[in-house]
């Protein structure tokens, strides 16, 4: 076994101190054995985090609301000035944080009493780290995303109970109806149920709130969490955005080296000295190796048996972070999950999308570490390996538009959508080069029939005036914010000419719906070239009939051809492949491509 010294984690978030989480575990119950075991686990997990991480993050709410948390964290008072432990919360200072909290709870509540008490004597606490995100906002967002993405099926999954009538409406209105109260189960329950609800349902809803709450912190601070807890294991996964500390494995390794008691009784100063202790480092390394080996096996099992990895029949690959963000927002993806192993290309977010027949598609969404066809081909191959049942891969993102002002039906403008047709992708750097000429040798790679059939279905519906993607665009822009809005038409400037550059007036197009993209079907040019050459662009248009130019489609087409599965390229246009190429349209182009992708998925039979 390879021992690496010293092992340090950047940030570990102590999720388990949350008062509602601890209550579920029975910390307030009179059974002494439960309280004793829970407090022991909390204490040891905190000590492991301090030993292994550069920074330990504690939600300020836990510190003030939970006696157990306050007691255990206070054992490390002498470390407060070193910045090893931080309280995290909203507001510019702890005073502001507490003032804000007091508005969220009834004055008779346990929480309000605790905040009042601390407000009076706020003298000793770990330094406060201000959050940019709001946990309440993030929980509400996750809550509403869930409503769009099959949360109601998941809640009742495998159970005999049914959701009450009008449950979906109540769910959607709940964040607003909270009226500024904290997003916690005691406040949510009466908004959803008029009479007693099934306990399993309540537990699952509580799990959703907790999961979104923890995710709000771990995603903002890119932190890992304690996993493999025993008494403190959660009913849901704890979303993590950094390496995790496996509690039970560490405990087992420390026991072998007779270190448990030493760590349990160490003072704060002694604990700091132990951080570099060779035996501790060996134990930690062995525990992590064991954990990684086991989770790798679990993932291998998961890829054969579990819901998301095996159920995913559609994969989406994006190139840029903005494209990935747009797809996740439009599809309502869950937190990214990493497949254990080494190297890049192991992260997935999953979404569940109901098709028009009411059946569910599980979609695996991922992104490239870098642009280009080589990366794209490699990533498509990895996606197929990790999600063995994937049958279709969609490349979704932005591209250069190929305009044709002299032919309005082919005139692709900024903020339009181009979908690869049966001619697929034209790899225009796949050439034989002679002294006097270049011979294009791009191999034919048509998209799959079933994906093209979905495109045809959407086309026919558009003729009937139905454009479901427009609604997704509106919703996504609303959700993501102003920056993602469609730029005004005066920012869609097309220039022609090389020596004398002049602006070309866009032809009138009766087929366009004002403020929304026009959909074009056609071949898409692809190469490892960032094209800023309008002459070449027009050459590609005149030679191959291409409607957009990008850098990944050919790699996806080759990889899917090799794996004998289908592909489709969906691109939102953001520039004209010329020297004016800018970023103004990129966010909006990402959103429209993602929205049309969702419409395609909904049009696919399950």
């Amino acid at each position: 076994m390879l021992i690496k010294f010293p092992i340090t984690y950047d940030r570990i978030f102590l999720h388990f101190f949350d008062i509602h989480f601890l209550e579920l575990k029975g910390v307030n119950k009179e059974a002494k054995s439960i309280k004793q075991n829970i407090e022991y686990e909390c204490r040891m997990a905190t000590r492991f985090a301090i030993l292994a991480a550069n920074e330990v993050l504690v939600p300020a709410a836990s510190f003030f609301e939970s006696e157990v948390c306050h007691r255990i964290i206070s054992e490390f008072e002498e470390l407060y000035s070193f910045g090893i432990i931080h309280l995290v919360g909203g507001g510019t200072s702890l005073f502001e944080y507490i003032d804000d909290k007091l508005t969220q709870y009834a004055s008779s509540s346990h929480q309000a009493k605790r905040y009042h008490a601390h407000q009076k004597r706020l003298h000793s606490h770990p330094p406060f780290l201000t959050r940019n995100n709001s946990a309440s906002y993030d929980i509400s967002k996750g809550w509403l995303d869930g409503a769009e993405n099959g949360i109601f099926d998941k809640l009742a999954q495998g159970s005999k109970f049914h959701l009450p009538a009008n449950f979906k409406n109540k769910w959607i209105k709940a964040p607003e109806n909270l009226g500024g109260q904290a997003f916690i189960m005691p406040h949510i329950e009466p908004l959803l149920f008029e009479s007693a609800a099934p306990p399993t349902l309540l537990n699952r809803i509580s799990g959703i709130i907790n999961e979104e709450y923890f995710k709000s912190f771990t995603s903002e601070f890119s932190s890992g969490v304690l996993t493999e807890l025993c008494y403190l294991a959660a009913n849901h996964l704890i979303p993590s955005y950094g390496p995790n500390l496996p509690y039970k494995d560490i405990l087992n390794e420390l026991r072998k080296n007779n270190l448990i008691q030493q760590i349990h009784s160490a003072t704060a100063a002694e604990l700091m000295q132990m951080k570099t202790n060779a035996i501790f480092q060996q134990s930690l390394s062995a525990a992590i190796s064991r954990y990684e080996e086991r989770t790798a096996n679990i993932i291998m099992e998961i890829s054969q048996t579990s819901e998301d990895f095996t159920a995913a029949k559609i994969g989406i690959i994006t190139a840029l972070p903005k494209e990935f963000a747009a797809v996740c927002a439009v599809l309502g993806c869950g937190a990214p999950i990493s497949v254990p192993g080494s190297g890049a290309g192991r992260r997935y977010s999953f979404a569940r999308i109901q098709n028009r027949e009411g059946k569910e598609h599980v979609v695996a969404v991922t992104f490239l570490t870098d642009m280009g066809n080589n990366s794209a081909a490699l990533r498509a191959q990895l996606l197929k390996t990790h999600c063995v049942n994937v049958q279709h891969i969609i490349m979704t993102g932005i591209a250069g538009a190929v305009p044709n002002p002299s032919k309005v039906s082919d005139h692709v403008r900024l903020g339009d959508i181009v979908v690869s047709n049966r001619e697929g992708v034209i790899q225009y750097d796949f050439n034989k080069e002679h002294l006097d000429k270049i011979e294009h040798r791009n191999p034919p790679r048509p998209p799959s029939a079933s994906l093209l059939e979905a495109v045809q279905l959407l086309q026919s519906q558009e003729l009937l005036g139905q454009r479901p993607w427009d609604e997704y665009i509106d919703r996504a822009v609303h959700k993501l914010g102003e920056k993602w809005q469609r730029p005004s038409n005066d920012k869609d400037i097309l220039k022609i000419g090389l020596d004398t550059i002049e602006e070309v007036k866009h032809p009138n197009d009766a087929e366009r719906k004002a403020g929304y993209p026009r959909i074009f079907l056609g071949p898409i040019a692809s190469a490892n070239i960032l094209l800023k050459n309008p002459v070449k662009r027009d050459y590609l248009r005149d030679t191959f009939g291409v409607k957009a130019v990008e850098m990944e489609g050919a790699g996806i087409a080759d990889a899917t051809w090799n794996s004998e599965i289908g592909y489709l390229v969906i691109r939102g246009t953001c520039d004209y492949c010329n020297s004016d190429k800018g970023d103004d349209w990129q966010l909006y182009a990402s959103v429209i491509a993602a929205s049309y992708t969702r419409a395609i998925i909904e049009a696919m039979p399950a």
Partner: protein
Amino acid sequence: MMNESMKKQRIVICGSMAFYNDMVQQSRMLKKEGIDTVIPESDDPFLLSISEESFQDVKLNASMRHLRKIRDHEKTYGILVINKDKHGIRDYIGPNTFAEIAVALAHYKKIYLFQGMPAFYQDELRAWNVICLDNDISKLVNAYKKDMGNWIEEQQLELFDGLF
């Protein structure tokens, strides 16, 4: 139908330690109904720091004691498995608990799952006639009282048989 050697019997509660609080709660509920229960021994936190060898002995002995309680021919009526959701897995049953269910099956004990049927083991558990309570402990209470009632009735009839 109970056999002659049966006396008032107990329920042995099983499940992951993550559900320890639920085990205690359900044990109290059953006791209120007059049903005796046994729950797994919780770890004494200070035993966690003993030597590896001693720790494994302690764990083995605790497991053996619990398995003996499950298979006890006279004292045990059946097992109640607390199988709530864990780590996002619906109706979670871990490997230890699955082994305990198998022991209960091999000794003809009734097997109740507190929540639903876990997808992972559903073929086996259905074949083993495992009963899902879907959080409704009254199903277990009613079945228990019916069986115990029958047994008491039989005992009383036997007494009368002796008189006539």
